[in-house]
């Protein structure tokens, strides 16, 4: 039983020292700012590649901040991080191929179902 208390005491200390409240507030603020920026993408009606790259950039930045700090992945050991991130390659492959697939379907439909759709 003594052990229990000791360990949690130790934990408490380390928790306190490495996670100052400041870091959470910082990330919190950053998330608001980034959300505001991605909202601005729509507000100013950017179009085309610029819009896409801005959307994706802000999205990944926000997602990364949430995962890294709010979900503590930044402080986790690599064994866990490694296991969690590898499966995402399967999703990346799925996304990539489905992007090719929807374009193919779209072109086929335009070509065969709409007069002059091939152009």
């Amino acid at each position, binding site marked *: 039983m003594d052990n229990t208390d000791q360990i949690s005491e130790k934990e408490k200390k380390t928790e306190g020292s490495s996670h100052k409240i400041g870091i959470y507030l910082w990330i919190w603020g950053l998330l608001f700012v980034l959300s505001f920026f991605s909202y601005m993408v729509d507000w100013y009606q950017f179009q085309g590649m610029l819009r896409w790259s801005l959307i994706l950039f802000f999205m990944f930045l926000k997602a990364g901040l949430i995962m890294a700090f709010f979900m503590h992945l930044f402080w986790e050991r690599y064994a866990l991080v490694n296991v969690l991130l590898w499966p995402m390659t399967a999703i990346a492959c799925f996304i990539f191929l489905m992007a090719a697939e929807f374009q193919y*379907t779209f072109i086929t439909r335009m070509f065969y*179902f709409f*007069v002059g*759709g091939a152009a």
Partner: protein
Amino acid sequence: MHAGIIFFLVILGSILFHIFTPWYWTDIASNWKGMDDTITLTFWVGGGVFIAVCLFMIYCVFKFSYKEGRKVEYKPEDKKLEKILTVATTLGVAALLAPGLIIWNQYVNVPKNSIEIDVMAWQWGWQYRLPGEDGKLGTTKVVNINDDNPFGINMDDPFGRDDVMVQSDIINLENNRPVKILLRSVDVLHNWYVPQFRAKMDAVPGVVTFYWFEPNRVGEYEVLCAEYCGVGHYAMRGGVEVQDPNSYQEWLGEQETFSDLIAMQNKEIETKKGCKK
């Protein structure tokens, strides 16, 4: 001991079955001999591996069956052997993959001089449409389909008017002329498949799919539906008649075009009106 013998007989039986089987593929009637050749190649390589592995296993069963106090090899790993086996297998697989990819490349690249055929499928039947003198098929929509427009051709499409319509489940093809089959379904998945041509592709509602082949043997063939399409799936048959160019042209001349159909319908309407008067 008897176990090894039975396993051996199974392998022997498989080989004999393969040699003496009366059931083998139908005589090919299209340009896709490459597919048959790749199958044959895979058969030799794969069959060889199968026989080798099984014979090795049977040998082990004979040679190393349980004897009290037999000296057993203790060798958890053999890096060299494993490496050799990996490399050999990789090479073998690559050798099988290469022809497969080459033929697939031919399969998805349709020759320029091929004639397009619109194959329309429904539960449970087929009908066909050929391009008219302009050499192009008109665009279609499912919602346009009705008795007056059995193929659902878009009325404002200039290419659609001269399309040749074959409202029958039998289509004639010209010998030695590549055809691009454009598959279209109005309800569920179907698949226009003639075993002798080897090629097949699903007909998917909502899109148009394609494949091509070049018939090279005059004759009549049965079309099977090869994608499950409901309770009538097994009975969904059609026919292909491959003809020499002269008879094909003759047949083609007998078919009616979309404008023929429209004209006929207009006449019908007029006669009906006339009757009423």
